[in-house]
């Protein structure tokens, strides 16, 4: 039997037993019955946590070395940020070799989309994506992270820095 429009439909291609539908139902039921004895894939979150690898793009942080932050407040991250989440205000100092440093560095986590452009564009490898994925804020002010919350010791970011060195740049064969 053709459908009124004259085109061959899925229904026309079905054989007798498929039209009866009951054997197909039995097949489907057998599949779901088998699935009941497969191991569950659920991760029970608060007890069992996801451990990200270096490739994970979590909360962006600033790298802190022994002699201070890497950031030179060039403002490229702020410029490239598609969500306009980053605000940088440069300051100058004569105490260190690097004369520029960010006087103010704020990331609005309500705006951040975790694209990682800031990390990609940074010439100093000063802003990188961390493994932190648990970001809870009680109010909007708290979601704007200042320097004191962003600066992270370089030792904690080794996985990401290693990943960036091996994957970030295009190398001709």
């Amino acid at each position: 039997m053709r459908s009124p429009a004259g085109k061959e439909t899925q229904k026309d291609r079905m054989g007798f037993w498929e039209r009866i539908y009951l054997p197909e139902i039995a097949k489907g039921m057998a599949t779901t019955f088998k699935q009941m004895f497969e191991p569950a894939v659920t991760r029970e979150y608060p007890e069992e946590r996801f451990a990200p690898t270096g490739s994970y793009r979590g909360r962006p942080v600033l790298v802190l070395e022994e002699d201070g932050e890497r950031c030179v407040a060039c403002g490229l991250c702020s410029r490239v940020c598609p969500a306009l989440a980053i605000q940088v205000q440069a300051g100058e100092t004569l105490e260190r070799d690097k004369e520029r440093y960010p006087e103010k560095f704020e990331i609005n986590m309500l705006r951040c989309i975790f694209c990682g452009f800031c990390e990609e564009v940074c010439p100093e490898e000063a802003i990188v994506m961390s493994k932190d994925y648990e970001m809870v804020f009680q109010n909007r002010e708290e979601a704007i992270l200042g320097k004191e919350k962003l600066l992270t010791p370089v030792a904690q970011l080794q996985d990401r820095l290693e990943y960036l060195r091996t994957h970030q740049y295009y190398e001709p064969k």
Partner: protein
Amino acid sequence: MAESLSIFLTALIKSVIILFGVFLPGAAGSVYFERKISAWIQNRIGPNRVGPFGILQPIVDVVKLIIKEDIIPLVADKRFHALAPVIAVTTAMATFAVMPFGNFVVIGNLRIDLNIASNVNVALLYVLAVGSVSVYAITFAGWSSNNKYSMLGGLRSASQMISYELSMGLSLVGVIMIAGTTSLNGIVEAQANMKWNVFTQPLGFIIFLVASFAETNRSPFDLPEAEPELVGGYNTEYAGMKWGMFFLAEYGHMIAASGMISTLFFGGYDIPFVKQLFPSVFYDGALILGIMQVGFFLTKIAIFAFFFIWVRWSLPRFRYDQLMDLGWKVMMPLALVNIIVTSLVMYALR
């Protein structure tokens, strides 16, 4: 006078026992196992936080529903809006009035029938009638909510009932012909010793099974509450315990339908061959036989309740026109064929 009072009192006691021993635990258990089985089928764990293995989940759900605000839409017809969930639960419970959980037991010189209304001779017709009333709940809910989606859900429910009630009733004619009675006890006795109707009436069984899925509004025929296109269907405008009552009714219907399937097609409470093999222990009226019959029947209910849940998480929902096609063009003619074949075979074997 004294006799009618004692009949009333025994029926009342039995109703309370069945309400708190079968209906509510059955509904709560189905809620729990619905969530657990759906989780297992989808390779998840399911509720496991409240109590060991999450078995207290239904209780917590009900507490949550009770303390929720009861929202009634301003433009709703308030009387019918409040009446609909009551009808839903009442009709779900009413089926249990005639369901035979066992034959009877004799304690001392007191004969206790193991169903509420003892041996009603029109029990089957009563079950079908009560099943039809349940559609009023959904139609009222849909109409009185004054919401387009609810309205569509209610209308679907009405047309679904008209299409399926017919083939459901016709599919049981074969069963009635074989038993020669519409009393449920009579139908069970006619199936004694593995002469189950599912073997003699396979077509009638399949039609009844499909129709009872439609009757209980369970997937794949849960069109009145089809979430993707109707938001929540008839229960969109309900909140709190009124909403919960619809779900109590749905699971109650599921238990009732499981009971009817096992009574009508799987020998009900009858335990095959024990009366012939051990006549000294298992005679009619023996307490141990009565208890075993109830256990046997409840096990069958549990198996069919599992089947209902299993089907829900396996099969996709039917489209509206497919549902109508199936009801009128397939199941009704098949039910009629079933009646004709059954009567011819019975005439030949007479």
